[in-house]
C-alpha cells in the first residue's frame, strides 16, 4: 500500500541506495540508518511500518538490535543475511524476525517479501476461505479441494494444513511448527514433521517432488504459498 514507511538499517551505503530507490519506486517512504544504535533511535522517532535489518552492523550484532527492537516494536522486520548462517536464521526467526532474505538478492524478490509481510501486518480479518493455485481451503466448513475435487485429511494433517493456511507466505521454523502441532517438548522429533509434510504434499501438490505450495526453506523450516 503506498505511503507505508520502511526503515533500512544497513551500514553499506551502496545497498541502502538501491534499496531506497527500489522501494521508493513502489511508493514506500524510506528512512535510513547506518548503525544499530541509529536504527533503534530512528525506529522510535519515525515509527516505520516495517524494518529491513542487516545482520552485520559496525556497532552491534544484528540479532541484538532485533531483540531490543522486539521489546516494544510489533511491526514486521525482514533480516538481510548471507547463506552460510542457517542456524542464525532459525535463531532470528525464533527471536521474532518475520522473514529473511539471502544476499545477494534481486529487487523483485525483496518487494514480494515486503508486500507479504506488510499484508500480514495489516491484520486482514481472517478469511475462512483460502485459495492458492489449484488448492482451496474452507476453514469454516473444514473442507479442502484440490483442482475442485474434495480431499480427505487425517486430523493431524488438517491441523498442520490449517497452521500453514493461517500463515501464508511466512517462514515457519521447524521448532515453531512442532510446538504448535505436537506441543512443547517435542521440538527435536523432526522426523514426525517430515512424514506429515510429505503426506500433505502428496495430497495438495501437483508434483510432490517439485513442491510449489508448501516449499522447504533449507535448514530453516517451511514456507506456505510463497508468493
Amino acid at each position, binding site marked *: 500500500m503506498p505511503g507505508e514507511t520502511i526503515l533500512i538499517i544497513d551500514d*553499506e551505503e551502496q545497498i541502502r541506495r538501491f*534499496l531506497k530507490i527500489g522501494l521508493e519506486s513502489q511508493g514506500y517512504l524510506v528512512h535510513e540508518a547506518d548503525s544499530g544504535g541509529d536504527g533503534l533511535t530512528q525506529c522510535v522517532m519515525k515509527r516505520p511500518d516495517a524494518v529491513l535489518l542487516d545482520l552485520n552492523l559496525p556497532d552491534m550484532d544484528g540479532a541484538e538490535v532485533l531483540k531490543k527492537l522486539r521489546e516494544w516494536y510489533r511491526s514486521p522486520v525482514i533480516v538481510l543475511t*548471507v547463506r552460510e548462517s542457517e542456524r542464525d536464521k532459525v535463531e532470528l526467526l525464533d527471536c521474532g524476525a518475520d522473514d529473511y532474505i539471502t544476499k*545477494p538478492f534481486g529487487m523483485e524478490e525483496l518487494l514480494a517479501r515486503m508486500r507479504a509481510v506488510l499484508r500480514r501486518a495489516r491484520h486482514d480479518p481472517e478469511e475462512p476461505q483460502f485459495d492458492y493455485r489449484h488448492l482451496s481451503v474452507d476453514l469454516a466448513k473444514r473442507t479442502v479441494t484440490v483442482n475442485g475435487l474434495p480431499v480427505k485429511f487425517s486430523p493431524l494433517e488438517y491441523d498442520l494444513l490449517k497452521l500453514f493456511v493461517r500463515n501464508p507466505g511466512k517462514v515457519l521454523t521447524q521448532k515453531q511448527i512442532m510446538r504448535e502441532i505436537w506441543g512443547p517438548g517435542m521440538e527435536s522429533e523432526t522426523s514426525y514433521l517430515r512424514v506429515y509434510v510429505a503426506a500433505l504434499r502428496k495430497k495438495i501438490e501437483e508434483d510432490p517432488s517439485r*513442491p510449489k505450495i508448501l516449499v522447504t526453506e533449507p535448514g530453516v523450516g517451511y514456507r506456505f504459498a510463497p508468493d
Partner: protein
Amino acid sequence: MATNLGAHWIALFVDTGKKISVNEQAQLKNNLDLAVRLGAEVLVSSDTDVSRGLMRIARQRNAWKLIIGKPGKGSWKDFFNSFSPVRRVIIESGKIDVVVLRAEKGREQTGEWRKKSRSSRWKERLFASVMLITVIVVNFKFLYIAGPRSVALILLLSVVIAGLVLDRWSVLAYAFVSALLWNFIFLEPRFTFNIRHIEDAIMFFMYFFIAIVTGSLTARIRNQERASGLREEQLAILYSMTREFASFRNIDDAARHLGSLVGRFFHAESVFYIATDDGLPRTPHPASTAFPSSDDFSSVLETFDNRKPSMRAHGESGRWFFVPILYSPEKTVGVFGILSAGEYPPSIDKATIIEAMAAQLALFIERDKADQIAEKGRLMEASEKLYRVILNSISHELKTPLSAIKGSVSTLVESGFYKGESGGLSLLAGIRSSADRLAGLVDNFLDMSRIESGRLSINTDWNDMEDIIGVVLERIEKQSNGRQIDVMCPDDLPLVCLDFTLVAQALYCLLHNAIVHSGHGPVCITAAPAEKGVKVIVEDAGAGIKREDIERIFDKFYRGISAKAGGLGLGLSIARGVAELHGGGVIAENREPSGARFIMTLPVETRLKSST
C-alpha cells in the same frame, strides 16, 4: 634438621584420648602449623600409649630418625615410671636413631641406642611378682587380724590388676601362686595346704575363675587395640592416597604416587598396565617399578579379561598379585600388579587395600580421559567458532558488493527505471547474470574451504530425501532454461539423518555438473535405499567422461579437457567432500551407450516413514 638433610619429615601427634586444656591445644596447633610451614607432613595417630603409637607410625613410614623433646621438668612420677614415653621409645626404637632434645634450651643431645634384648613382657612379670610379694608381706604384717577372707579379697584385687598387665597364661600363674600362698599362709590350719571349709574352697577356685575372666578380657582389649592399629594403617594408606590424588594432573603422577605408597607400606614393587582404545598394551606404564616377564603377562591379560584378581608365583622372587583396575563392574581400564616380597598370597586386608588403590586409580584414569575429551572438545569448539567467524566475515565482505551490484541492476531492470535502448537492457541482464555466477563461485569457494578445513561440524537432523531433491530442483530449474530433469524417488524411501543444507549443496553440484557438461539431453536423478542409508544417482546422456579423467574430475580445481569455459572445478570435490563428511563417497562411471553416471552414497541412519 630434616630440612638441612633434605629429608622428608613427619610431625606426629599421638592422641591418647586424654583431655588437654585449651592452652595446650593452642600450643599443639601452633607446633603443627610450624611443622607444616617447615615442610613436614603432619599425622595424627590415636593410641592410648604414646610410645607405641609413635613407634607404629615410625615403622609404617620407614622413619630412620626420631626426634623427641625431653620433658622440661622431670616430675617425681617419671622417676618411678619406667614406662615414660621417651624411655619406652628409646628402648623400642630398634634400628631407628633417636635424638632427644632438651626442651628448654633446645640443645641437642645425640645418642644412638640399640634395641635392648629385654622385652617388656618380662618386666611386667617382674612387676607382678613384686606386687604379689608386697601384698603378701603387707597382709602378713598388718592385716592378719582382719581374718583370711579380707586378705583373700585384697589378693583378688591384685589378681585383677595383674590381669591388666599380664598375658593370659601369666595371669593364671599369678592366680595359682596367690591362691596357694593364701591357702598356705593365711588359711587355717596355717602353713598347710589343707582346706576345711567349703567357703574357703569356693574362694580358692574363685581365684582361677577371676584370673581367666580378666585374662581373656585383657586379651580381647589388646586384640581390639591391635585391630584398630591395623585399621589406622589402612586408613593412613587410603587417606594418603586420596588426599594426594585430588591434586594430580595426569595418570603418570597418580601411578607414581601409588607405586611409592606400595613401596612404603608393603615394601613391594608395582606395575601398571593402562588400557588404550585398542586394548591392553604389552608395555607397562612408565611409572611401574617392576616389570613382569612375558610369561607373567598372560596372567595380566587374564586379570584384564576376567576382571578378577589373579596370582602368579615362580620361586621366591617373582610372586605377583594382579588386580583389575575396574571403573565399573563391566569396565576394566587397566591392570595393577604388585610384586610382593612379604606374605603370599596377600592377606585379605592387604588385598582389600590393593583393590581400593586400583579403584582409586580407575576413577583417576576415567577422570583424566574425560578431561582430555572435554579439553579437546573445548579447543575444537573454539577453533570452529573462530573459523566460522572468519568465514562469515569473508563471506559478508565478498557478498556485500555483489549484493549491491545485483540489487542495483535488478532495481534498474525490474522497476522500469531503464528507458534506454534494448541493447542497454541486455547489457544490464548480462551484469546481473555475471553477478549471479560470481555469487555461485564465492559460495562454492567458501563451501570448499569449510569442508577442507575439517572444522565443519555437520548439523544432522531427520530429513526426507525427496524434500532435499525438491529444494535442489527448485534452485537449479531457475537457471537451466527448461532442461528436462527426471526425478525418481520411491515412496518407501526412509527418512535419513543428515545435514540438509550440505547434502542439498552436494546434489546441486552434481546436477549442475551434469547439466553443464552433457549438452541438451535429459538428466535423471534417482534416490534409492542402499545397504546402509541411501544412495543418489545422477545420470546424463552426454559424451561421458574420458577414462583418464574419471578419478581426476574430483580433484579440486581440476577441469576436464573438454570442459567449457567458466567454473572453478570445485563442484565435484564439494559433492565428494560432503558425502565423505557423512561417511560415504561419490564415484563416477560411464553409461552405455553414452553418458555419465555419478553415484553418491550416504551411509547414514534411516527411519521408515511408516514407523513414526
